[in-house]
């Protein structure tokens, strides 16, 4: 077996939108759709977004929306006490439901594929007992024909002008965030989470990614995070001034 094969496959596989990608990742691991399985594919999902080819930049926003929900799910799984707003809880449950529904439809589409065209029922090829004779309706008039062709031309789908490359900020990868976290922790022993992430200035997803990076660091024992009260600032502190042991 060639070890680089899966990598190659990931690059060539075209995913039809964010849900397709996510469902494929869950199914590839033979997992059921749940918060646990979604949390476990979060990193891989974000990796895929970073590998998205240039031409699909316009779709990236859609991918990022799903990514931010995934990050929430992951944050929650790392920190069960994490308070989430009702909106956030709602979007998590919503994502699960959407995936389940898509999963059902995908399963059925395999069944449809099996029977399509196998046992066709045929309709009449001709209209029986019809004599063709010239019989225009009252409305077959030149002005109606003019109006009709105008309607036809009007409803032609517009030419597919390639969308101007949307300037969507590239989602920050977990690794980049961890790098930046570590550097900043080194320079300031104590910092608040909102300082670090520049909350309000950058996309929400960046906040979450940095938050998660923080959680991962906590897990790895690189930093110590403290939250005094429920909605207080999260304070982080570095355990050691040396190089953290992440890869």
């Amino acid at each position, binding site marked *: 077996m060639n070890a680089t094969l899966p990598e190659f496959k990931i690059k060539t596989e075209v995913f039809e939108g964010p849900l397709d990608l996510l469902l494929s990742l869950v199914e590839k691991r033979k997992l059921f759709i749940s918060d646990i399985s979604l949390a476990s594919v979060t990193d891989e999902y974000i990796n895929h977004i970073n590998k998205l080819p240039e031409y699909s930049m316009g779709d990236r926003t859609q991918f990022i929306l799903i990514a931010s929900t995934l990050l929430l799910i992951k944050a929650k799984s790392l920190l069960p006490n994490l308070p989430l707003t009702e909106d956030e809880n709602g979007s998590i449950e919503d994502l699960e439901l959407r995936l389940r529904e898509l999963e059902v439809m995908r399963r059925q589409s395999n069944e449809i594929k099996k029977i399509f065209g196998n046992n066709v029922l045929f309709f009449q090829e001709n209209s029986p007992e019809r004599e*063709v004779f010239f019989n225009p309706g009252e409305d077959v008039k030149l002005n109606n024909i003019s109006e009709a062709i105008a309607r036809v031309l009007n409803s032609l789908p517009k030419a597919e002008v390639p969308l101007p490359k949307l300037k969507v900020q590239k989602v920050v990868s977990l690794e980049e965030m961890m790098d930046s976290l570590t550097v900043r922790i080194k320079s300031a022993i104590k910092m608040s989470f909102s300082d670090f992430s520049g909350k309000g200035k950058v996309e929400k997803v960046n906040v979450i990614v940095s938050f998660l990076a923080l959680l991962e660091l906590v897990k790895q024992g690189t930093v110590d995070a403290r939250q005094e009260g429920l909605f207080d600032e999260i304070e982080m502190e570095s355990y050691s001034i040396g190089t953290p042991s992440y890869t």
Partner: protein
Amino acid sequence: MTNLSNQIEALLFWKSEPVSLKELSKMLSVEVDKVSEGLIELEKSLENRGTVLIKKEDTVYLATNSESSELIKKITKEEESAELGKASLETLSIVLYKSPIRRSDIDYIRGVNSSFILRNLLIRGLVDKKTDPKDSRTFVYSPSFELLAHLGITEVGKLPDFEKVQAEIETFKNQKEQNNQTIA
């Protein structure tokens, strides 16, 4: 009903036009004698039903039963006076401006399948259908002479904005070729 008379019914229904015994025997891969037997059986089973088996010279076909003939005459009358309606007028206008045209191209321009509408336009004598000179397996549609006369024009070129409309449709069709490569 045996399988054979069943299949004969299906074939005649599907064709809905006169079919010779020889053709039937060929289609069913059975002897003509067998076909005749099957037809006798079919005839019996159609007693007291909506359709009947009609034999004419050496052909057979299905037709509506005689009890329905009054009803159908009445409905035909009503249909004759009916207006075409928006969708049919749009289809007809495409045939007028872009003939001869294949059904697939009409469908592509309208964004929906047009088979029923075209069939209806044919029955009303508004369009003609003939084999596509470029591909004998398909048909092309064009306006009938009666239609042009009815509209008071001697040729399609006299239609309002003829060239402009043609050009617009042509541009759209050219996109088709490009798009087809991207739509799976």
